[in-house]
């Protein structure tokens, strides 16, 4: 199971440069979703004229399902500068892959909640790290796409773009590099602060459970 929590409001606001197309995912029943806070925050953005559309749907982690829904919103997505996704890490990655030439940002962090793991189509993976890195990596999860779960860039082991650990797997950081280059945003990687993981996120899980 997993829990999603809103990132700091200021940090989300800093991402929305211009107008946002917002996607909420209410798919898995196992997922605790900060529905109330998300709604309040989205209302604020809307009142400030920073939203082209808010789409609430189920199972955005299913690429076919996502495509079907997004088809009806081509104009709104086109008009938006960023796509802001309120979902678990798998959902954000699915949207980022589908809208590969758009800035797609995660508005939530995904934490682990011990117990039954929700059934999600496993095209993308999320380790529920509690400090989602997707906004600095073009929407590709460095923890699951890189064999060493590196958060500061590529190791020296990639050969022909493939991972040193598994030559059948494309190097995750090579994918991130290409995605950011395509978006013209390689600067965010160059200028990102040194990232260090916090493994004490079980405290945050406890807090989120209590706040429910």
């Amino acid at each position, binding site marked *: 199971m997993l829990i999603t929590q809103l990132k700091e409001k200021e940090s989300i606001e800093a991402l929305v440069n211009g107008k946002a197309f917002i996607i909420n995912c209410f798919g898995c029943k196992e997922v605790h979703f900060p529905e109330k806070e998300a709604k309040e925050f989205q209302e604020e953005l809307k009142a400030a004229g920073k939203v082209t559309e808010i789409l609430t749907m189920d199972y955005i982690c299913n690429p076919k399902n996502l495509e079907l829904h997004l088809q009806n919103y081509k104009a709104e997505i086109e008009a938006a500068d960023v796509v802001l996704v309120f979902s678990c890490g798998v959902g954000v990655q699915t949207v980022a892959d589908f809208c590969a030439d758009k800035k797609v940002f995660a508005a939530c962090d995904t934490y682990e909640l011990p117990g039954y793991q929700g059934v999600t189509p496993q095209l993308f993976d999320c380790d529920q790290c509690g400090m989602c890195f997707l906004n600095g990596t073009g929407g590709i999860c460095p923890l699951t796409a890189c064999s060493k779960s590196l958060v*500061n*860039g590529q190791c*020296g082991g*990639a050969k022909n773009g493939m991972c040193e650990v598994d030559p059948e797997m494309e190097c995750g950081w*090579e994918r991130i590099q290409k995605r950011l280059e395509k978006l013209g945003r*390689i600067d965010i990687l160059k200028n990102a602060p*040194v990232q*260090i993981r916090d493994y004490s996120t079980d405290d945050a899980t406890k807090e989120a459970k209590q706040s429910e």
Partner: protein
Amino acid sequence: MKVTELFKEGKFVVSAEVGPPKGINIDKMIEEAKEYLTGVDAINVTDNQSSVMRLGSLAVCKVLKDNGFNPIFQMTCRDRNRIALESDLLSAAMFGIDNVLSLTGDYTKLGDHPGAKPVFDLDSVSLLYTMGLLEQGKDLGGQDLDGEPPTFAKGAVVSPCSDSVDAQLVKMERKIKAGAQFFQTQAIFDSERYIKFYERAKEFGVPIQLGIIVPKNAGMCNFMNNNVAGISIPAGIIEELKADKERAKAGITGTEIAARIIRECKDYCQGVHIMTLGWESKIPGLLEQAGLA
């Protein structure tokens, strides 16, 4: 002595690399160092290289230092979490070992303990940052260090002939921002390709040591071409080694090739770093042929 001081003096810094044995007898290693490595400015000691368990890098650095050499302590993030890494950095500083080379490290599965837990709590970038923090008298937990903080010459690696060279350059920039003060490169066999990389990397203004391996034979080259990341050996070099097997076996051809690469790249680097792979004995001849002795 910090290698950064040497770079500052404008010296062309030559380092060589030794791999600790799988055991506790290092007499042979020290004898070889005394015989062949007195002409180099510093000696890297590898850290369980290729994820193969060996005698520890820090201990060997200390012995080398006691024997009058200037060690560079290689540290990977594969086997230790941040507490152990910070603690070993303090240990190194206490011994007066002040050159540290930060590496992410090969994956555990590639070595002789494939079932070991891969740690990677930090990585090459965050380890450099951590050194900087300790220098300011702080640790990653936010606590103050007691007394005089340590200081390090903070080194890192880069792979100029990687087929992901753009990603490597981004990482290099991140390492510099995290505190890297000098770089050693993966082994270079293709001077032209290296120089192209240097034209892009020189804007960072951080000294780069050209990585050198003395090639032993065609088989070794083919193996490295197929299996080692960031290595690209042009066909011409492999042909040269094939031409006269006896000369190659004696290390004559390989030394000539390595010396030529150094001469070709000398104006595009601030030093060389020689990975010996057991051929320490070739170093004096190599330095002489390259015009560095």
